[in-house]
């Protein structure tokens, strides 16, 4: 497949950055006082990299909720944004996300609707997990997108688990992309741990959407190496639901070493490159962290300006 060399290396670097970002943010979470929930998408880094490699600044991208930090890879965003705490920016195509899962898919469908109504060639790529894919609101959004042939690509990221529930306990078919037929839109499954294959499918679907061909559904098969989520101190997370050995086996299919191997077989990446990239990325993250944290944060006084009437 004809993926330009610099794009391949960009995707590799993006995946490495994503992984290291999770590690950095986890350390911050553990040592910070922010509470909330901490989620990460280890093992699923190839999918956002393949998506962002196909998007422009004015396009819209919603990562899966556990991968919001991947926005750094979307044109228009940078690493420091991730540490600044302020990502919401419709100009750069990020309309936030809903912690009540699935309720944001219709919102992103609205971005695609606006693009169509105004006659721009913007597209939207909206990602959600296979668990979230059960929500009724997603069904309504997809029916709407299909009815109006909206420029949106839905990416169903099947990491096998929804909380502690394995997807095969819930779905009665093997290929989740079969779902697309019910909406009358194109659907395709892809190995989401193979960044090159994922890139190719995303490119095809994004180009179709951009040129008036309407929406599509990509099912990216992957595996959630990260826990369900890290809870605030005192709260319990149960992680005993994975069959013995499964996690270890899945680590063997980690998309980052896999791509590293491919690139070195293609003669595009040496061991020295790997080490250099690791070091550079670590430096970048450290710099981005200090830049991002220096940016003004929304403080209490600004926050309460959202009050529509009396506070």
């Amino acid at each position, binding site marked *: 497949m004809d993926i330009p060399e610099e794009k391949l290396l960009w995707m590799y670097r993006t995946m490495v950055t994503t992984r290291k970002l999770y590690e950095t943010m986890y350390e911050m979470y553990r040592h910070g006082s922010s509470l909330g929930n901490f989620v990460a998408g280890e093992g699923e880094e190839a999918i956002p990299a393949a998506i962002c490699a196909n998007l422009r600044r004015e396009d819209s991208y919603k990562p899966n909720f556990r991968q919001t930090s991947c926005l750094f890879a979307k044109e228009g965003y940078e690493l420091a944004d991730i540490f600044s705490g302020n990502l919401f920016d419709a100009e750069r195509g990020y309309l936030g996300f809903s912690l*009540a899962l699935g309720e944001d898919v219709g919102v992103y469908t609205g971005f695609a609707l606006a693009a169509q109504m105004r006659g721009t060639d913007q597209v939207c790529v909206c990602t959600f997990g296979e668990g979230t894919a059960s929500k009724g609101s997603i069904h309504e959004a997809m029916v709407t997108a299909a009815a109006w042939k909206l420029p949106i690509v839905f990416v169903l990221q099947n990491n096998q688990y929804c909380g502690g529930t394995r997807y095969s306990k819930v779905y009665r078919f093997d290929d989740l992309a079969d779902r697309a037929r019910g909406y009358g839109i194109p659907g395709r499954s892809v190995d989401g741990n193979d960044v090159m294959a994922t890139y190719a499918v995303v490119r095809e679907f994004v180009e179709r959407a951009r040129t008036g061909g309407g929406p599509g559904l990509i099912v990216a098969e992957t595996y959630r190496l990260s826990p369900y989520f890290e809870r605030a101190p005192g709260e319990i997370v149960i992680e005993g639901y994975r069959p013995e050995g499964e996690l270890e086996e899945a680590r063997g299919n980690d998309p980052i070493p896999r791509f590293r191997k491919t690139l070195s077989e293609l003669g595009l990446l040496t061991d020295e490159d790997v080490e250099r990239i690791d070091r550079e990325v670590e430096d970048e993250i450290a710099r981005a962290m200090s830049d991002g944290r220096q940016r003004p944060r929304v403080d209490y006084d600004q926050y*309460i300006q959202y009050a529509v009437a009396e506070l």
Partner: protein
Amino acid sequence: MAANPKPKVRMLDCGEAINAAFREEMRRDERVVMWGEDVITMESPTAGADLCTRGLFEEFGGDRIRDTPVVEAAIIETAIGAALAGLRPIAHVMTGGFQMGCFDPIFARLGTAYQEWKHPGTLPVVVMASVLGGAAKGADHALSPEALFMHSPGLKVVMPSTAYDTKGLLKTAIRDDFPVMFYTHREVMIREEKEAIPDEEYLIPFGQADVKRNGEDVTIVTWSGMVLRALAAAEELAGEGIAAEVVDLRTLVPMDVDTIVTSVRKTGALLIVHEAMKRAGAAGEVAMRVAEAAPDVVRTLKAPIRRLAAKNVALPTSLRIERRLVPQVGDIVQAAQDLVQESM
């Protein structure tokens, strides 16, 4: 050896008390069934809870306890259908905020339709969820939705603040023949101190508030997680010579207005505290119920009724901001002091 009349109690946390209530009721009545997301797999249907459903699948089997996909609307609607067909479902929806995604099924189907269409029988559904306040989890997780569902005609609303009350009220909820919204609170669920729970069965009737602390100077009416903060505030106030009476409403619908009136008759000052947003929050309902039930008490109040609740803006995902929006112990102390000051 002489018989040792040990009081038959066990020390349980709230999750264990819930587990015991489920177990007893499922043993007692085989029509009691439950489903929700990860009810079996994670053993923790009410998010923030510890192991509420541990062992239930092993004891009662997959016909009576099921994991669902992420389908909140279907969780509620299937519970309604199954209840109409003779079962007594407990439907888990994780958090109060996620109930916004199944608002019609709860508010209108469960809370309205059976009255509107003159359903001749019963509708025994318990909807269980957690309120995850106090940890910057944002509106979808931390929303305390009591006022929304108090406004639905057919729903009872239960919000306990201790493991003991949770067990007794949950058993009552499961035996109730009509819909009950049952909310646990994160801060109650993660409390480290266990409580003495009698082995012997007990039920706590709805519509009975509990005076969690006696005092003569000011009545603080509250419920759910805020009871813990109000009790901490009362302790501080005691150090300053103010005796606050803390009334835990326990159930919002039905509401025990008598207990509030009795307390306010004594103290002459009423402060209502809740975690949910102030505008159209349940405090307004409490105040009006008191005014309607006991105009004489209102006329002789030493100071106007006050309320303390979250500010009228979205719950944030920042702890710094959340702590300034939602009443903290210090805010309750301050509000009670102000009220007592005004009463002099």
